[in-house]
């Protein structure tokens, strides 16, 4: 079997899916909140999947992430650190799985357990992940936080189940092993 077989084989799928993709619209915030709740509900409980963007580029002395071409991310606040490895997307994304070892006020600490593709991380690296509290785009993480607020769930409850949050990595400080991330 090859890629052509799959493309051709898709011609035999249920017509309802074909119709759905033609006439369907993506739902608004309510749908997003549902997804966020699902993400926050501890469906997967081992670690955190962190999407790492392709072609990482080292920038020294960057004052604002707005200086960096990054079509996926609209940044409203700069991180305090200024010497980070920043990444931007120009194609496929890389990802890593991080085993959560503890939660912090701003995210969690953990160890990289799996990685797909090249990146600045390696299996076994210890990292601190800082989850953005605010952002301009409607990310899963942001939706997750909204959902937490809307449904009176606390961050502590989120910590207790140590669930996975799938998030997008956008900056990494090798000095402190800190990943800056937000949901995708």
């Amino acid at each position, binding site marked *: 079997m090859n890629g052509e077989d799959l493309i*051709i084989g898709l011609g*035999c*799928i*249920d017509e309802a899916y*074909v119709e759905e*993709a033609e006439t369907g619209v993506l739902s608004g915030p309510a749908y997003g909140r549902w997804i966020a709740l699902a993400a926050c509900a501890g469906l997967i409980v081992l670690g955190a999947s962190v999407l790492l963007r392709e072609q990482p580029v080292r920038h020294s002395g960057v004052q604002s992430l707005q200086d960096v071409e990054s079509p996926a991310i609209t940044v409203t606040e700069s991180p305090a650190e200024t010497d980070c490895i920043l990444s931007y997307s120009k194609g496929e*994304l890389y990802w890593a799985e991080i085993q959560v070892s503890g939660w912090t006020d701003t995210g969690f600490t953990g160890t990289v357990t799996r990685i797909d593709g090249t990146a600045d991380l390696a299996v076994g690296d210890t990292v601190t992940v800082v989850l953005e509290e605010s952002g301009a785009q409607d990310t899963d993480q942001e939706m997750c936080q909204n959902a937490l607020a809307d449904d009176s769930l606390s961050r502590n409850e989120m910590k207790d189940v140590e669930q996975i949050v799938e998030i997008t990595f956008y900056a990494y400080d090798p000095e402190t092993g800190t990943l800056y991330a937000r949901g995708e």
Partner: protein
Amino acid sequence: MKDAAILELYWARDEEAIGQTRAAYGTRLFGLADRILRNREDAEESVSDTYLAAWNTIPPQRPNSLFAYLAVICRRFALGRLDWRDARKRQVEIVTLTQEMQQCIPDRRQEDRLEGEELARVLNCFLGELPRESRMIFLRRYWYADSIGEIALRYGISESKVKTRLHRTRRKLRDHLEKEGIRV
């Protein structure tokens, strides 16, 4: 004219059915064929063949969605008309799509080939397990051969989000195919 009325024309063997079908769906069917073939003449012939096939199959068929029914036929004709070697030379988008789908196949050995109904069953099962949003984006890309930009525009989301969803969905498809017994 609505689908039900057009279908009645087919069932009454009224040739006006073809004209009404063309008026209702001709543009979209041509767009689908043209995205696959990137050849206006071949695309027009695919659409004409589609009308003829519809005329010959309705009745006895009475599709729930006339567009989906026609689109399935049209896509099949377009892919059947596609000269893959020539398409590779011309770097037609469909070739890129097959390369992307190739990444979903964990094993290329001939004995693991899935064909016809079995492949349809596997793909329907996979699509049924996907979140609706991911399924729609996936099918716009690999069923309708839309570009990333077209999908982003259609659903009002960023191109980066489209790429991310596609990346995750391809990864899930690879896992699904592997689970279905295609060994790595």
